[in-house]
């Protein structure tokens, strides 16, 4: 259970509040207009954004004192998910040994993870030689190697075409299911949200609404969401 307990973020004139919880293993989408604070909410859960009030808890334990790397969280950003000067295999290896002292067993696991995301044999390439979609796959493969119970996705596939994005989301679903991870996806696209998530949280006007059942929400959206979706 991930709990946002009377959580408040303030930065300059920006404010965001949330007070809800989602169960382990769930798939949640965050939708809402640009600048509403979707990415900021993810950054707060990942530990990059200090809170102005309230707490964020995982299985009842406060995450506040933990550095980003110590939280039970994997996060994929919009870009810069791979170190450009390391090979793909080395990037994955960081999940197994942060000093990159990798044994034969580690190498085998890296190769298997790359196979799993359809990048078999690309381990020696630098990220610059990979397409946008392939870079996303490589980052997902790293998540596979060090599964953490919460997976945060900050529009990592926003630059991909619709078909490729659907493929990637299917892969994310599979990876999250394998790891049993709670997955929170930030997206602009209601279709992505519907396809991927069981529940959808609408972020608007300083408030992250509690996640609601995706099908029901889109069937009868409240006025603000309807306006965002462009429906009268």
């Amino acid at each position, binding site marked *: 259970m991930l709990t946002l307990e009377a959580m408040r973020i303030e930065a300059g004139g920006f404010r965001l509040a949330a007070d809800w919880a989602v169960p382990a293993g769930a798939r949640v989408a965050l939708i809402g207009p640009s600048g509403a604070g979707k990415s900021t909410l993810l950054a707060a859960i990942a530990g990059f954004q200090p809170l102005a009030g309230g707490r964020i808890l995982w299985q009842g334990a406060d995450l506040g004192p933990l*550095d980003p790397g110590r939280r039970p969280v994997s996060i994929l950003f919009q870009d810069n998910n791979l170190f450009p*000067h390391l090979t793909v295999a080395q990037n994955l290896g960081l999940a197994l040994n*942060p*000093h990159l002292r990798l044994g034969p067993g580690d190498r085998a696991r890296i190769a298997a993870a790359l196979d799993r995301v359809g990048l078999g044999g690309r381990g020696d390439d630098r990220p610059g030689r990979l397409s946008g979609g392939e870079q996303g796959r490589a980052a997902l493969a790293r998540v596979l190697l060090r599964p953490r119970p919460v997976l945060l996705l900050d529009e990592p596939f926003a630059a991909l075409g619709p078909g490729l994005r659907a493929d990637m989301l299917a892969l994310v679903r599979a990876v999250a299911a394998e790891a049993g991870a709670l997955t929170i996806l930030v997206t602009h696209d209601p279709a992505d949200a519907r396809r991927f998530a069981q529940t959808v949280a609408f972020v608007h006007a300083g408030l992250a609404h509690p996640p609601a059942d995706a099908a029901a929400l889109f069937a009868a959206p409240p006025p603000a969401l309807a306006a965002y979706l462009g429906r009268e």
Partner: protein
Amino acid sequence: MAAGGVRWGPAAVAALVAAAVLGPLAAVALRGGEVAALAPADWAALRFTLAQAAVSAALSVLLAVPVARALARRRFPGRGLFVTLTGAPFILPGIVAVMGLVAVFGRSGWLAAGLAPLGLPPPRLYGAQGVVLAHVFLNLPLAVRMILNGWAAIPGERLRLAAALDLPPGAVVRHVEVPMLRAVVPGAFVAVFLICTTSFAVALTLGGGPAATTVELAVFHAIRFEFDLARGAALAGVQVMLCTAAAAAAGALAAPSGLAGGLGRVAALRPRGAWLAAQDAAVLVSAGLFLALPIAAVLAGGAAALPVLPDAVWPAAARTLVVALPSAALAVAGALALSGGRRRQAAGMLPLAASPLALGTGLFLIVFPLADPAAVALPVTVAVNAILALPFALRLIAPARAEVAAAEGRLARSLGLPPAAVWRLVILPRLRRPIGLALGLAAALAAGDLGAIALFAREGGETLPLLVQRLMAAYRMEAAAAAALVLAAVSFALFAAFDLWGRRADA
């Protein structure tokens, strides 16, 4: 939290740098507290320092504008080489430049040989005019690079707009180029001024006497020849105030960087017309000859004199390396430690307030009661050069460090990489280029240094620059030319080796 141990390290380095700068300066202040120790000649030295620096900076910048303009708007074979060569004086030791200038402009130099058949007297190189000539030679290229950067930074849109409005050339100058120059020239002027106020090697070899002594040179004379420590310290204090004021002015003007940056593209600004083309060609050829001839003279004179290469060159070369390598390593290690935060970077800029002789004097005052200064000449020279190179290294490394932190810092933190792994796997590989460049510059600067070493070393303990200077002073010009060639080779080899290592990044 593991981060506690990491933050402690840079703070310690910052404190160490502050102590290394402020300690000697405090020793200077304690010993030279009373300005009464200054003689009328010392005030003359201060006036000469300011005057020659102002004239040198003004001439360098004035001459640099047409050169930079010609480089900005022309494309010709060898242009890249020309721009690269304007970087050479950063690494050319001052004493070597002086050797070259003497060979070209000296009493029996190339220019005198050309004038003699016309019945004209040889030029007079020694004195104020020689000091200014050498400073223009050493700093014109720096000014050209800074101003060329200014031209390269003119937004293409503005030139497109000027073209779309079909502005005549005069209007382009007035609305596009003059505003850029107004922004860039003051910074270039102050940067050159600052360098010229701390000039020692040039003043020592071409200046001197009541009419052409700089404060740095007066410090050296007071300590080395008159052994008047109080006066030396008072002069060093004057030098520190001078440096602080000039550095503060430079900081306020945000001196443009001549070290890095794209000097490649300014194609949109190409005027037609044979007259303008001839003008640009004349400017570039004159500037090229002015800069290349002394270097050619060092190479030719040194090569011809190699048979009389004194044996003392090899131990001096070894001492030079013993100074240059640790000094470069210390400067870059310090810059890496201090590159992570604004307040730490401020600590790294402290050395700008000091000069080689001021720091050397402070260390002399500290060491003298405890030990024989000559015995610690090399460690002191290492320390002084490491400290003085730190701001340059920091300027090269800090922006790249900030870029890496912005692009990949979050990723490293989200993966929970321990600090040692972040350094080894992320920061060092990503910073390899600026680290290589900074190591090369720091090593070349230290190899060419003629400041602290001249204050401390005794006969038989010379580094190459000091050996060249002493051979010159003894009128052994051939031997000096040969040693100068070896010194130039050592400096360029050090720079090239480190810089090439850095460029192999991401290969």
